[in-house]
């Protein structure tokens, strides 16, 4: 089917109509002929806003029902996983890092010993740090995948609910007018 918007490509342009907001870009020296527009675009846009609002509240209701179907335990598990990840993010940089040093002679001697031990563990600390970073990365990837799966599940449920509602209303419609 031909695109309806392009059917009049060959016709001559209509004269300019009055519009609010035009003319903010100076660049024309032509005078304008004023004619009433054939379509009230603002009215069409008002209708669009109304329909979009109605669909939004329908969708919100469907989403609410879809949320109820997806197990609350899953949402709780994801939330706990997020909290654990946050703890891991905070604690990972601490591994292998020198502890705070008080400004005492004992504190300074302790810092020297810690530095010596750190140096001696050159074979141990860096691989441990990178292994921790890799584990944290893997857990974060898993968390992201899990939240996406949960979101996909909610969407699927929302579509199912919408389809059931549409099917029910069609059935109702055909029962009312069997002919």
């Amino acid at each position, binding site marked *: 089917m031909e695109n309806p918007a392009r059917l009049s490509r060959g016709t001559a342009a209509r004269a300019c109509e009055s519009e609010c907001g035009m003319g903010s870009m100076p660049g024309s020296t032509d005078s304008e002929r004023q004619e009433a*527009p054939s379509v009230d675009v603002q009215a069409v846009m008002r209708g669009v806003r109304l329909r979009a609002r109605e669909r939004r509240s329908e969708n919100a209701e469907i989403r609410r029902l879809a949320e109820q179907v997806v197990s609350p335990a899953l949402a709780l598990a994801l939330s706990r996983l997020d909290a654990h990840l946050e703890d891991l993010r905070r604690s990972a940089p601490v591994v292998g890092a020198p502890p705070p040093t008080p400004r005492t002679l004992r504190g300074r001697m302790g810092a020297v010993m810690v530095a010596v031990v750190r140096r001696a563990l050159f074979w141990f600390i860096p691989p441990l740090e990178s292994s921790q970073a890799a584990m944290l990365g893997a857990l974060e990837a898993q968390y992201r995948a899990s939240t996406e799966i949960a979101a996909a599940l909610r969407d699927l449920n929302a579509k199912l609910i919408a389809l059931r509602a549409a099917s029910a209303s069609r059935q109702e419609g055909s029962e009312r007018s069997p002919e």
Partner: protein
Amino acid sequence: MPHDAVGNDVLGMAECFQSAGCPTTIFAQWIHPAREYCARRIDLESKAAWRCPEDILIYHHALNWELGEELLANTRTKVVIKYHNVTPPGYYASYSDYLFQACRDGVEATGRIARHARAWFWADSGFSAEELVRMGAPAERCRVVAPCHRIEEELAQAPLDNVVLGRYRTGASILFVGGLRPHKGHRKAIEVYARYCSLSDRESRLLLVGGSDPNLKRYEDDLRAHAVRLGVDRRVDFAMGVTPAQLRSFYLAASVFLCVSEHEGFCVPLIESMFFRLPIVAWATTAVRETCAGAGMVYEDFQAARLAESIDECVENAVLARDLAERGRLRYERLFRPAAIRGRLRELLAEVEESG
């Protein structure tokens, strides 16, 4: 560079002033082979071009350019800064350090250039002019003039591409033209399209047409993944590096032009759509609001559902689509046809010539 908005503006201005009897030379540091016939490499040493106080230097600013700023600092000519807007660097933070830095440098350069002591400032849009004033340019020396384009000389004269026309003329084709860059709103366009698919049974496609950048491969991958997540990947077509013939054919085959770009200094594809009588559905961000102004269904805030409903209206309501198409074309004829822009440029040039 050919087919580049800034390059077209430079060329268009030169042609305008040349035809008005004003000898004009285009200087650049890097010149594309296709444009070597009309531009000269900058030679700071000779200095001849920068000495005469009666001459006018029109500096096109879109990026950080050290040599250019050196020129501005040392020139004795009158100065006009043509501002094409610099994309806020934040859009590139997740995708390219190189482009992030380039935009950040560009924004800083704008701040320096805006405080040029004796320059006039010509901006592509009121939005860009306001930005310049916020950065320190004197409001009384800021003017707005749409960028020159080559829609009628090149795009409209290009032959038709039957492959594009054949593929997209049936059903509903929703078009967006713009480089594959994070501030162009492709992600939002895909979201709007997915909403449209959920409320219309009509066979349709979303056409994302424009140039790609090897530094932004991750952005392209993200967009494709987003389309997969929304279940519309098989109906979203990416057309990168198209020829003028293909671009013209896309405009002729499409049903609606959708613009949900987050940042625009002017948006030449909007006036291309107006020229080709393509109804426009848009989100009124930055300069999109004033470029469109009444020539489409333009909304102040982004709501995918609303934009999707508007697309559906344009596709299903032939009278509305025709009306919007004609409004767009009339707006183009009134404000953006080459003669109108050239007239404005000559006015502004005369103002600069008369100034001290």
